[in-house]
């Protein structure tokens, strides 16, 4: 199975149990660089897919929690190079790994070198929030060579024609942003959002995962049946920030 197929398969397998798959997000090196391996191991066994945030100085799609986590990680000297070395040292994990990064740190690393280094570190794909499909051909070509996924995001304001293009162009899964706005704000999941997610699912050959603002079991229950997975980011980062064990918190999202 190619790395990008591993992502889709992990989400489908989990969703087949009746609850949306859990995609956990962690800003690399936050809250403590020394705890990175421990957190990755814990989250990779509690979640179905693990998304690792590469910190960036100007995270324009992110709310206050991930901004704070990113700057704290940078202050500890976290770099893409370091992240890849740590992941390589960890070896193969149960859950497939994605890197979530703004484009500039990837450009600075060098796109071709990046694909090979990421594949070697066990990374199965990328999410690049400031790289629209229209500008992605260079990164896409580099990742194709290693069969790595480039996940596309769709949003509630994406019009129908573009939605079809984004769903067709995505790999691994389709990341359905639940709201207009940055990450972290809690959303009520009104009926309109469920309708939008149903439309995304109808046009996507890949699993559809909802993200931005997902924090509670109530939200996950609302989304059940409308998505194949949910991404939890800011809320999970806050759990780690408080020094709590993320495993029971994640388990509580999918039971009860």
């Amino acid at each position: 199975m190619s790395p990008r197929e591993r992502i889709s398969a992990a989400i489908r397998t989990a969703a087949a149990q009746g609850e949306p798959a859990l995609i956990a997000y962690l800003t690399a090196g936050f809250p403590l660089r020394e705890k990175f391996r421990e957190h990755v191991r814990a989250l990779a066994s509690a979640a179905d897919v693990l998304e690792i945030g590469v910190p960036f100085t100007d995270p324009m799609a992110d709310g206050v929690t991930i901004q704070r986590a990113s700057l704290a990680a940078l202050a500890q000297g976290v770099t893409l190079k370091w992240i890849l070395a740590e992941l390589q040292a960890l070896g193969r994990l149960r859950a497939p790994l994605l890197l979530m990064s703004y484009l500039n740190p990837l450009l600075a690393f060098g796109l071709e070198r990046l694909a090979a280094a990421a594949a070697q570190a066990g990374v199965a794909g990328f999410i690049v929030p400031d790289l629209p499909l229209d500008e992605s051909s260079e990164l896409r070509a580099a990742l194709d060579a290693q069969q790595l996924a480039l996940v596309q995001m769709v949003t509630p304001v994406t019009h129908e024609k573009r939605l079809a293009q984004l769903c067709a162009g995505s790999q691994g899964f389709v990341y359905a942003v639940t709201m207009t706005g940055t990450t972290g704000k809690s959303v009520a999941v009104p009926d309109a959002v469920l309708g939008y997610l149903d439309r995304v699912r109808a046009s996507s050959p890949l699993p559809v995962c909802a993200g931005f603002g997902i924090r509670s079991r109530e939200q996950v229950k609302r989304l059940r049946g409308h998505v194949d997975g949910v991404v939890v980011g800011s809320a999970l980062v806050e759990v780690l920030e408080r020094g709590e064990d993320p495993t029971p918190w994640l388990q509580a999202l999918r039971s009860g």
Partner: protein
Amino acid sequence: MTLSAALPDAAQLLAELIAGRLPDARGRFGPFGGRYVPETLIPALERLEQGVREHLHASDFQAEFAAQLTSWVGRPTALTFAARLSERWGARVWLKREDLAHTGAHKINNAIGQALLARRLGARRIVAETGAGQHGVACAAACARLGLPCTVYMGAIDMERQAPNVGRMRLLGTEVVPVTSGDRTLRAAIDEAMRDWVADPTDTYYLLGSAVGPHPYPYLVRELQAVIGREARSQMLAATGRLPDALIACVGGGSNSMGAFHAFVADAAVEIIGVEAGGRGAGLGENAATVAFGRPGVLHGAYSMLLQNEDGQIQETHSVSAGLDYPGVGPEHALLAAIGRVHYQTASDEEALAGVRALSECEGILPALESAHALSGAERWARSHPGGTILVCLSGRGDKDMSTLQQTLLGSQSA
């Protein structure tokens, strides 16, 4: 390595630029520009691009824009011969007086133009960023004039060093939001304005103040500011019967300079010079001289030159002038540098302050600290081209800088 070496088709790119074919359909100026934004903003940018195509050059829009420029902004701004400065520096120095435009700087040209466009596109509210506060004040004034609600994001550090402009914006009915994240200057203010826009991309219009950002902003801002160069070119011809030997402007994001340069790019005999903020020196973090010390990368929606470290993290910058204190530069400037049509140099904080003093003493004009960088470059040019003629884009007035000047020029005077 020079970038021009990486662009062997420099002559062809210059020809395309002059022919008006750049930016291309993908929003590119050669390799620079493009649209690197979260997916949420794509429909808003497509609507804006469509709106620009439909309205910007339509005769009714142009008539409306021209009427505001004449009756409210106070255009055309004067062209002033700087007689005593010319005598001191040994070359003939002419000033394009954007400091005389309403609200005290060139920023108003773009602000009223985009506010008119926003109204046509049915925007319910305007959001903007500001560094020195000049763009914020210009937006606040334009929005008051057109009856649009306006919110301006401003870095907490800039709010302190440009306090009078904060008060002006508030008096003009604008909500000023302090930005305490990131570097707490212009860059963080743009991040925050974009986050606001992402939250409401349908009804909010983002009124970007410089020739930066995702397509079509660099193009839109250039077109609205190009009035500076068009006026200056015909004023120079009327006053002297010929074009200047050199044209010079300061470059932060690059809107006054792009506006001044655009009409002259095809005039091969006119040397064009952009002056960046050299700050305290060449070290990373000591300046805001992006073309001089940067490398290509992506920030705030465009591929352009950037001050960044080896890991692609954006570098904090320093300049005595808040308006130039920015780690990026417009993509068209990146192209003009790469193809060698414009030469970019730096002026230090100290040199800029000397420029403030020189213009104030010789001509009775207190220039903005930003514009003083261009004056410093003009002095350098004048001293090496005795008898030549140089046109300086005096982008703004210096009243807003009084607190910085108290601590620098006036402080050292009393000590």
